């Protein structure tokens, strides 16, 4: 673990609920569980990502009181072996039924014994941790480093239908700056403080990506990681915010144009601009260090890749799409028959773009072939093996901004619930301007395609995809 890098822990909503149910069985006594975690060992942050919850059975505990829980170490031996094989780490979690929001003397004693022994078992510098859950579900924790020190976990978050974040220490934002006074008033200083601490990735910086970036920066999000390998062209000027004719003339990178615009806004948002495709190890690693990701892409394989990344690293994923459907041929050629758009919210461990029926794995393969071997792709279309896909669809800024706005409002509602129904009722928000109607659908069941990859964190190659291997020079 590099020194000075913040360490955080992420669970999904299902894991958090399972943990809470086990840790608070209703008898008022402490209980314990372990989280097997994947790791994103990043340059900005290290993220421990829960893969699985392993409760320590109540019957296995030799002591359970309202102040102490003790269990024989052999209970966790099988877990140590699993963690070792999978390259994972372990986080012990126990409850404070009385609601004490700090580690107790008993906890200190127990962690001083357990955490260094975990570190010694694995004999490497992967970080292990210890966390406490309070009766209202809040959590705090600490890790053990190579030097035996136990610094606090900087952040613990739950990526579920609601997005919960708990930070170590007091508010990091200080006073609310003038630019944010009115939205801090609407959503509360707590939410503004949270936005300030967030790291959000936006993948795709064109029609829907640029208005998402604009909104996030003006809301005061602390860090934006923006990813796009494309340059501004004249045909983009109809829809990329802050892009000018001079940018098109110079062929400036979209990410450079948008990073410059955010800097000039002066809202204090730090932008990490990656002028590369998501199909690169650097982009995957940078996005995987974020808390939340917006997918504003126009390719099926890119969206599948981002869905995979969001699963490996448990990132809440907002997928944006717009569609203007005109009759392609015949007497009514050119007539617009539909103007619509969607925001799909995908909580890790839940449904996916595939299980929601947006595209199939065959579509993903075909799109991958089009990207990596355009000639073979063209041959397969000609031979009728796969269907051709329109590459450039019509796009209009007025629709893009509506969908981008709905997506950012969906994020706000998940950080600071304000809707009449619980957030699980808004897994898919869809607008038809042809019908002038807005629809919302509740979350469907979990996706079997991604199940095995949940919370795996860093692997070699990244995401288990040979294409993301680092090239050896």
């Amino acid at each position, binding site marked *: 673990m590099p020194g000075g890098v913040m360490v955080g822990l992420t669970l999904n909503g299902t894991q958090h609920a399972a943990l809470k149910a086990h840790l608070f069985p209703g008898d008022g006594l402490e209980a314990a569980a372990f989280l097997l975690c994947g790791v994103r060992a990043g340059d900005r942050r290290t993220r421990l990502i829960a893969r699985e919850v392993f409760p320590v059975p109540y019957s296995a505990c030799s002591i359970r009181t309202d102040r102490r829980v003790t269990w024989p170490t052999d209970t966790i031996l099988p877990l140590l072996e699993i963690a070792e094989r999978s390259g994972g780490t372990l986080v012990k979690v126990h409850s404070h039924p009385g609601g004490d929001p700090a580690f107790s003397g008993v906890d200190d004693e127990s962690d001083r014994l357990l955490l260094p022994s975990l570190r010694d078992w694995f004999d490497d510098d992967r970080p292990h941790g210890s966390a406490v859950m309070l009766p209202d579900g809040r959590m705090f924790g600490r890790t053990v480093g190579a030097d035996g020190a136990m610094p606090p976990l900087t952040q613990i978050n739950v990526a579920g239908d609601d997005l919960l974040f708990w930070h170590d220490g007091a508010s990091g934002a200080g006073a609310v700056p003038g630019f944010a006074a009115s939205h801090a008033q609407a959503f509360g200083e707590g939410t503004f403080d949270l936005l300030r601490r967030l790291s959000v990735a936006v993948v*795709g910086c*064109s*029609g*829907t*990506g640029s208005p998402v970036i604009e909104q996030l920066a003006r809301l005061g999000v602390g860090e934006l990681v923006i990813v796009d390998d494309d340059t501004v062209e004249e045909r983009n000027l109809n829809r990329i915010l802050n892009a000018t004719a001079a940018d098109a003339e110079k062929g400036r990178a979209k990410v450079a144009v948008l990073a410059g615009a955010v800097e000039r806004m002066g809202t204090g948002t730090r932008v990490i601009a990656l002028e590369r495709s998501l199909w690169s190890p650097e982009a995957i690693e940078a996005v995987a260090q974020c808390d939340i990701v917006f997918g*504003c*892409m*126009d*390719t*099926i394989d890119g*969206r599948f890749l981002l869905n995979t990344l969001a699963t490996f690293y448990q990132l809440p994923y907002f997928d944006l*799409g*717009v*569609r203007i*459907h005109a009759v392609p041929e015949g007497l009514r050629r050119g007539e617009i*028959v*539909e103007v*619509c*758009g*969607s925001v799909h919210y995908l909580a890790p461990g839940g449904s996916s773009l595939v299980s*929601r*029926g*947006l*595209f199939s794995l065959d579509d993903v393969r075909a799109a991958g072939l089009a990207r990596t071997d355009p000639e073979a792709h063209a041959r397969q279309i000609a031979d009728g093996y796969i269907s051709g896909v329109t590459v450039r*669809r019509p*796009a209009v800024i007025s629709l*893009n901004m509506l969908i981008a706005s709905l997506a950012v409002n969906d994020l706000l509602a998940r950080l600071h619930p304000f809707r009449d129904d619980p957030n699980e009722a808004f897994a898919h928000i*869809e607008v*038809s301007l*042809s*019908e002038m*109607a807005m*629809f919302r*659908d509740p979350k469907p069941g979990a996706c079997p395609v991604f199940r095995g990859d949940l919370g795996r964190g860093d692997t070699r190659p990244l995401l288990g995809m040979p294409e993301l291997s680092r090239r050896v020079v």
Partner: protein
Amino acid sequence: MNEQARPPDMSGEELADAIREEILEEIADLEEYAKLGKAPPRCRGYRFRVNRDRHEVHEDKPTRETILEAAGLTPAGDWTLRLKLSGGGYELIKPGERVDLRRPGVEKFKALPRDQTEG
């Protein structure tokens, strides 16, 4: 009319007449009935809008797939289909689900492509 309701002394021809009486119209336009707040009678066909255009089916409880096919929207898996009720409510129709077109208030259908993409 079902078998139980058939009076014992009714001949086959009389029964056919009775059924014909019940079919008031050849084709029922669902939007018109929804505006009147009435349930459409049993008809030979039912006309309804899917998005802008009108289409017909010849059964009173078609599946989601039959409705999409009638509107030329195939494969059905690429579309979401919602039923619009008079008064403004929408109901999502699941794959394989049958829709009772004679249910009062059924006004039209809204179909949208599942995948919407633009970068």
